[in-house]
């Protein structure tokens, strides 16, 4: 993996997958949201929007999945697409964040974020994980 990249797509036959890294767990979460956004075929338009997000999980992996699923839910619920993500409070089982984007009727075409082979691992440079999305 290119050390300069925060995320990159991994080949997956039927769905979409990306490898993501971050200097901190909070940065990993933000980068994962950006990676997922990069797979959206739709660009937002019109009025800017911002939403507050609070997510729980039983460990880092569930927190990561729940965070990304929460974004997909908000996109579908409000007909918006988010492209900027700012986490505030983050620990292994809880996060608060703000997401920013624009209108996009219908939201993202991604169905869900899976737990397939998911492990958030600590490296000398921070954190990394590989995520598979059901599309």
């Amino acid at each position: 993996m290119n050390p300069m990249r925060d995320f990159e797509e991994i080949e997956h036959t039927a769905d979409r997958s990306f490898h993501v890294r971050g200097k901190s767990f909070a940065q990993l979460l933000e980068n994962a949201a950006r990676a997922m956004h990069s797979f959206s075929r739709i660009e937002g338009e019109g009025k800017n929007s911002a939403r507050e997000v609070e997510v729980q999980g039983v460990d880092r992996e569930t927190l990561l999945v729940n965070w990304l699923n929460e974004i997909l839910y908000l996109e579908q619920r409000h007909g918006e697409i988010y492209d900027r993500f700012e986490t505030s409070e983050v620990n292994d089982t809880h996060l608060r964040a703000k997401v920013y984007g624009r209108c996009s009727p219908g939201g993202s075409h991604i169905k869900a974020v899976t737990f397939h082979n998911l492990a958030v691992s600590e490296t000398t440079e921070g954190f990394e994980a590989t995520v598979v999305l059901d599309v």
Partner: protein
Amino acid sequence: MLSKHDLVRVAENVWDIPPTFRDDMRVPARLYADGDLLEAALTDNSVVQLVNTATLPGVVRHAIAMPDIHQGYGFPIGGVVATRLPEGVISPGGVGYDINCGVRLLVSPATADEVKPYLEELASALYTNCPSGVGVHGSLRLNNNELDKVLHEGSRWMLGERYASGEDLDHTEEFGRIPGADATYVSDRARERGRNQLGTLGAGNHFIEVDQVAEVYDQSIAARLNIYQGKVAVQIHCGSRGLGHQVCEDYVGRFQKTVKDYGIKLPDRELVCAPFESTEGQQYFRAMACAANFAFANRQLLAHLIRNSFEQVLGGKLSSFRLHQVYDIAHNMAKIEEHTISGHSMRLCVHRKGATRAFGPGSSVLPDDLRDIGQPVLIPGSMGTSSYVLAGTEGAMQETFGSTCHGAGRVMSRAKAKKMVHGAELSRKLESRGIVVRAGSMSGLAEEAPEAYKDVSRVVDVVHKVGIGKKIAKLQPIAVIKG
């Protein structure tokens, strides 16, 4: 990684991975494939995913992969795993996010030659009348009470609303209603996501296709199904939309803790499961049944909209074009079924993830008019290629818990398909072959290019040869409608 050397050839097109391959396997893994399909399966992680499913608590006989196997998440797509009740587990990941994704086939007494002069108009009417695309809303706005009825009654609710006929229900798996559904276990979020999506197609690989019957392999069974050479048919491929996705997401998330509570060790967190008879297992099953019923109702409403479109375009022009339902099948589902294994009758939870139920002749769960010929099985091909109608067989009952393949199976990632194929060019190519295309997204079209899939004819030939499905007829597309 697995190689061909890890597989034992059991018979022609039948391969086993013995339980000695990995310590955590409880039963062998079985793969149905010819030489080329086996090579294709070994190029990604799908066979490892198959081996992973052989570790599920309560799994019986063998974990199975059909010749259209490809890499999924948790289970491979094309997987069949049965667990013995009461101690066996149910796994939401073994059903997938699109609960009761499936196919419905309608046939018309009109011939393709009669319909072709009106085909452009018909395709436009179908595209306009059957909402497609991401997050799209349908014409029905259900209140809470009505949504509960859909979740509990499935297609049967449609009968009361005059969107279905008795024949439609008889010719739907489980007669259009999975028993055991309890909407108490469906989250508010899932209800919210599904409420306005009834009667919508969605995006991805979902489609409506107008076909002509190109070849008939078994005249007598085909005639019983109203399938005749040259006649027009319509396929609907879609599922439970946002409601099903949310049910799966809710329970895969919740079961991350449940597996720890029950001390279940798994090679992949997407395989999380719960004992079927446990409180958690029952809650998921009852919620899954709701989503499955929503999907049956969804395809039923789409069938109604398709019939209206035919009436709108062909009414007054052709004398006879009414669409009869051949059958409606699920290919992402967990079902409670009785099967005979080594002479013993067992109650099983059969997970079919990208696999189709294919009950043979004589099955007591089939309607009277189909019982002697076996259950119709619908195998859609990739876009622009053939699709097949099969019949369930006794061989499937004996070997695969009454299951067979579900489609072509991908061999190329969506990203690669988009790089290789341009949507607009593909659309022109299809049009040059006389196939009318109506698509909301050109890049979505490119992702589903036929080059990204295995050859469905080879897949179907394998299941026919090994006797877990019987070829009845082949369909060729004349119009494709996609989100």
